């Protein structure tokens, strides 16, 4: 399932804000797409300059959509190419490859109440949550931290005038007081946060400090966890090849450049599918999958985000 792919055609392009582009994609032959669940994402192959970028984006469709996949992509100034490819090169009618939807961030069906906190474009998984019958039935609140000017941008995907959707921005009286919000939640609430690393960490820290059970707290990092860094050499022992990992590409991308098919799913250090045995060298771990003890043992690495501390890594690939 991980390697099987889809061929998708761009059927709509809307610039909804200066740095936000919404795309709709349908299957090339018009057949029904595999259905998505709330919170699911799709990994797309995006045409870059001289290379292909593989980026994962959350689907904002209602759960179970078969006719098209909708995504919203923010152009990141420091983009390594994926979001720039969407904003500059991708045209109506273009065909791109993608993988089947996967879901690492589903709503928890036993929750009494869903509390969502989003930072900017991190709202995308929650746009599908708000269209999920189970989430609607059990009760929810969505807190979006965004630029004041972007408050209306997501309106087309939000229930009109929903009193459970709250906007916060960086001005006196409008900032989100995370500890106060968490402290007033009733028992049985599940907490979800999707945004930049600083927001996620602030929410996770506040939840932990207030005694939230870990199983009721869920996070998804928006945007690629940074996968660039100092260049190094990666040796693939089994296949007897070696590759230089550039500063703006990930170890996984370098391995793929060699033509070695490495399994992967989220490309963000969350899912664990790309875990690879590390034979020599010290890793700089950047994933959220390996335990602290795994990382200390230093025998495994997640090549989608993690890199070398030194000049060289030897992988059992």
């Amino acid at each position, binding site marked *: 399932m991980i390697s099987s792919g889809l061929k998708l055609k761009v059927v709509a392009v809307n610039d909804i804000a200066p740095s936000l582009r919404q795309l709709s994609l349908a299957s090339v032959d018009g057949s029904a797409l595999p259905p998505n669940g709330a919170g699911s994402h799709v990994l797309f192959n995006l045409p870059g300059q001289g290379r292909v970028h593989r980026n994962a984006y959350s689907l904002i469709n209602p759960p179970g959509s078969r006719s098209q996949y909708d995504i919203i992509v923010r152009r990141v100034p420091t983009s390594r190419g994926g979001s720039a490819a969407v904003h500059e090169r991708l045209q109506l009618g273009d065909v791109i490859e993608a993988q089947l939807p996967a879901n690492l961030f589903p709503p928890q069906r*036993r929750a*009494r109440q869903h509390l969502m906190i989003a930072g900017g474009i991190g709202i995308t998984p929650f746009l599908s949550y708000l269209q999920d019958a189970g989430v609607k039935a059990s009760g929810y609140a969505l807190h979006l931290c965004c630029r004041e000017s972007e408050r209306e941008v997501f309106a087309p995907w939000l229930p009109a005038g929903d009193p459970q959707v709250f906007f916060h921005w960086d001005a006196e009286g409008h900032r989100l007081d995370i500890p106060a919000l*968490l*402290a007033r*939640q*009733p*028992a*049985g*609430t599940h907490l979800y946060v999707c945004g930049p690393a600083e927001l996620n960490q602030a929410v996770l820290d506040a939840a*932990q*400090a*207030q*005694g*939230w*059970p*870990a*199983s*009721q707290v869920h996070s998804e990092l928006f945007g690629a966890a940074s996968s660039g860094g100092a260049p190094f050499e990666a040796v693939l022992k089994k296949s007897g090849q070696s590759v230089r990992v550039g500063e703006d590409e990930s170890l996984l991308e370098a391995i793929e450049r060699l033509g070695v098919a490495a399994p992967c799913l989220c490309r963000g250090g969350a899912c664990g599918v790309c875990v690879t045995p590390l034979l020599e060298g010290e890793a700089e771990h950047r994933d959220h999958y390996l335990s602290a003890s795994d990382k200390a043992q230093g025998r495994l690495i997640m090549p989608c985000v993690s890199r070398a501390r030194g000049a060289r890594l030897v992988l059992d690939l």
Partner: protein
Amino acid sequence: MKLPPSEVTSRPVYLPLAPELAAGRHWLVLDAPSMDEVLLAELASAFAPVAERLQVWSIGSLQPAMGLGPVTRLADLKAAASALAGQWPLRVSDRLCVQGSEPFVWSVFLAARELGLAESQIQLAHAGSQRRRVWCTHCHGFTEGVSSSTVACAGCGRELLVRDHFSRRHGAFMGVMVDAEVPGQRPVREELFP
């Protein structure tokens, strides 16, 4: 009074209760007849770090509970459920810890779930009898204190085979009619948990 582990493999595994230091209010609910001095002393020492935000409730009368602080005595499980409801509003930081016989701890668990506590906010520990509560799959009635491998259902009178299948939803083991296939053909009733 530590009991040997049950040989019923589907039986939940119960670990000793422990407070969570980052959490807020703690309630310790005890099944008095199942507790002994050693268990109470262990609990007193385990829960000392959260003493100022701990309430101890006992159903039935506890022997003087050394070190556990003031204990509120409640008449029955219903009173315990009302007492918990009286703590409204229940928050995510609340923790409920329950120790006693298996039917006791699961009764409290189900009442607390009904009031909105999540499973991750509840800890259960076993003490006392290993006799089982049985849920009849035919009449949906409960039979309490079952020590044997088969039992007459307290609800419908059918002779039930007590399956080694614990239901967390009912807080009980499943009982199915033992001679449904060949009426009258019944295995010998064995005493498992005297």
